[in-house]
């Protein structure tokens, strides 16, 4: 039973890591139906920015928790700027083009950003400082769940709730939903569609940066390629939960995390990816739109 609980909690923390990255993916898809393959790279750039800020502030002797907060804020702003620019350069000129064109452009952007960071920074792995302090009351439970795990789980859930509220109850959220339903119609009733899409990208990229900083400080190392694998897993989670659905991203992440954790724990970690992707195939056979995705009839 203890073993089961350990695996369950391990899967929970792994799943919420996937969920945190998947939220940005699914939000962009939900609004403009574009799979933003550069999302993983924005996550990586956020982590690098966090590392730079943390390095400077540590040298100045700031306390850990304030470093974490400031590193998060700066990484979010920096990544949001990146998201804004990427959208303007790589996706906006292709707005009227067939859906495949921006997809290719996204893959190109992903390769460009990876190589840019590799050349500008370093191809080596860099140590990332542990910015999330170990809370004392968690001490006896560290065997099951470390403080950083708890931190990531709480962040994923609260980001999910905040995003849902944002889209349901704010003016901008309303404009986003309108754009998602019918871009042309939204334009006709006075929604500034370009602005809405820019904001979507900035929010999505900011979320990626939150994930980047928290996850890097949980794992303790980064390099230029971390965005690729994390991006693939998060994408899987988003599809599993129903791409475009915000609670779906979290559910998908958790299901993926649990599947991997139990497969590794009870069968063999040699096969954890095999089980994870078998599950994906199974779910997509029975629910093609994902767990929480809306079944929509296609316009022909």
């Amino acid at each position, binding site marked *: 039973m203890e*073993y089961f609980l*350990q*695996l369950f909690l*391990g*899967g929970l*923390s*792994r799943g919420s*890591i*996937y969920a945190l990255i998947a939220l940005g993916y699914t939000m962009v898809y939900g609004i403009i139906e574009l799979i933003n393959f550069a999302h993983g790279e924005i996550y990586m750039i956020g982590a690098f920015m966090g590392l730079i800020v943390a390095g400077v502030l540590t040298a100045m002797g700031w306390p850990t928790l304030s470093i974490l907060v400031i590193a998060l804020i700066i990484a979010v702003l920096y990544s949001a700027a990146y998201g804004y620019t990427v959208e303007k350069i790589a996706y906006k000129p292709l707005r009227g083009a067939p859906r495949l064109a921006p997809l290719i452009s996204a893959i190109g952007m992903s390769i460009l950003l990876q190589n840019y960071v590799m050349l500008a920074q370093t*191809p*080596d*792995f*860099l*140590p990332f400082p*542990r910015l999330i302090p170990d809370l004392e009351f968690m001490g006896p439970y*560290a*065997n099951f769940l*470390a403080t950083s795990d708890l931190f990531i789980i709480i962040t994923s859930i609260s980001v999910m709730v905040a995003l849902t509220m944002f889209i349901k109850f704010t003016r901008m959220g309303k404009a986003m939903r309108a754009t998602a339903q019918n871009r042309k119609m939204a334009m006709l009733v006075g929604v500034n569609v370009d602005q809405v899409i820019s904001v979507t990208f900035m929010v999505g990229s900011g979320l990626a940066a939150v994930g980047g900083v928290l*996850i890097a400080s949980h*794992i*303790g*190392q980064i*390099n230029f*390629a*971390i965005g690729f*694998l*994390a991006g693939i*897993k998060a994408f899987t989670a988003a599809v599993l939960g129903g791409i475009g659905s915000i609670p779906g991203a979290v559910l998908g992440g958790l299901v993926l*995390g649990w599947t*991997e*954790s*139990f497969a*590794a*724990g009870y069968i*063999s*970690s*040699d096969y*954890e*990816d095999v089980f994870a992707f078998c599950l994906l195939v199974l779910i997509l056979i029975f629910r093609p739109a994902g767990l929480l995705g809306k079944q929509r009839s296609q316009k022909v």
Partner: protein
Amino acid sequence: MKSRWFLTVLGVAMAGLMAVGCGGEKKEEKKADAAANATAAAPAKKLVLGVAGAHSGDIASYGLPTLNAAKLVAKELNAKGGVNGMQVEVLAMDDQCKPELATNAATKLVSEKVAIVVGHTCSGPTKAALPIYKDAKVVVMSPSATSTELTQVGNYPNFFRTISYDLIQGKAAAEFAMSELKVKKVAIIHDKGDYGKGFAESAQKTFADGKTVTVALFEGITTGGVDYSAVVQKIKASGADCVLYGGYYPEASKIITQMHKKGVKIHFISDDGVKDDTFIKTAGVDAEGAYATGPQVLADNEVFKKAAADHEKEFGSKPGAFFPQAYAAAQALLNAVAKAGSTDYDKVVAALHSELIETPVGKIKFDAKGDAEGASFSVYQVKNGKYELVK
């Protein structure tokens, strides 16, 4: 008309060569002048030593010290009058540790009629390039390609190496765990790659032969993962008192960090893919006490001391990874050519098998399969943020 053109081009080319020569030391300038005067004389005979490996790219830090070592050996021999009266010239070919570039490099070296090559840096590229060298009867010696099959399968009689191989490395790690750490139950984890799995399997076999240790767990993990808590819990549940990891440092540091987070504080032994300062940097305090095997370095070896001093004088820095092995490889190849009296393939190979030579890795010759006799692995431990020799 045509022959005139040819002469003009030749003249320009010679002028270019002289300009290059002038950039060097005074002695070379004189030589260039002499060569220019004696236009009819055949060019002085040269012995070309090919050096192929990762000279750029991700792991250039593993390949460049080899090039430096070859240059130093060539310089030293040239000062003594060369090999068989020929001056040794180093010809570098970059493969970036990529198999497809390695075959290009090999083809190029073969077309330049190079008979002896130090290289390549990585096992994969070495494996890709060897058939080309074999067909052209080129003798190849690697300072760092440790894949067991390169020599042990016996496909390449033209291949030698001055480093020991993964099978021996896994055995060294396992024997250390049995005899020095006295472990009873061990969990073996690997990264599913050729190198990591090879190390893990050879350790497993050694434990099985030793009979004092039970292997409680043998599993592969996915590289680049965000979380290894499931496998850590499994290690914990298995009751092992030692973890043996085959693979590279990024995963090793994640695993050891998570182990300590979950309160699993048992011995951690790994391979020379982890015996790198980056492991200590990324794992931080968690790296403390971890063991890793690495090529044996004889710190009190006279040849090594001299070679390291020469390196500091020539390049202004301490020698890098695999430098002693590379120095030994260049020495052994050139010595074999000297003993054989020519670059004749059969004679050079015979000389490599029979002639002992004093190198930075000890006094070596090569066994029937092409491995250096006497080269082996040592065990290191992280102490106060540095790898220190244990055994």
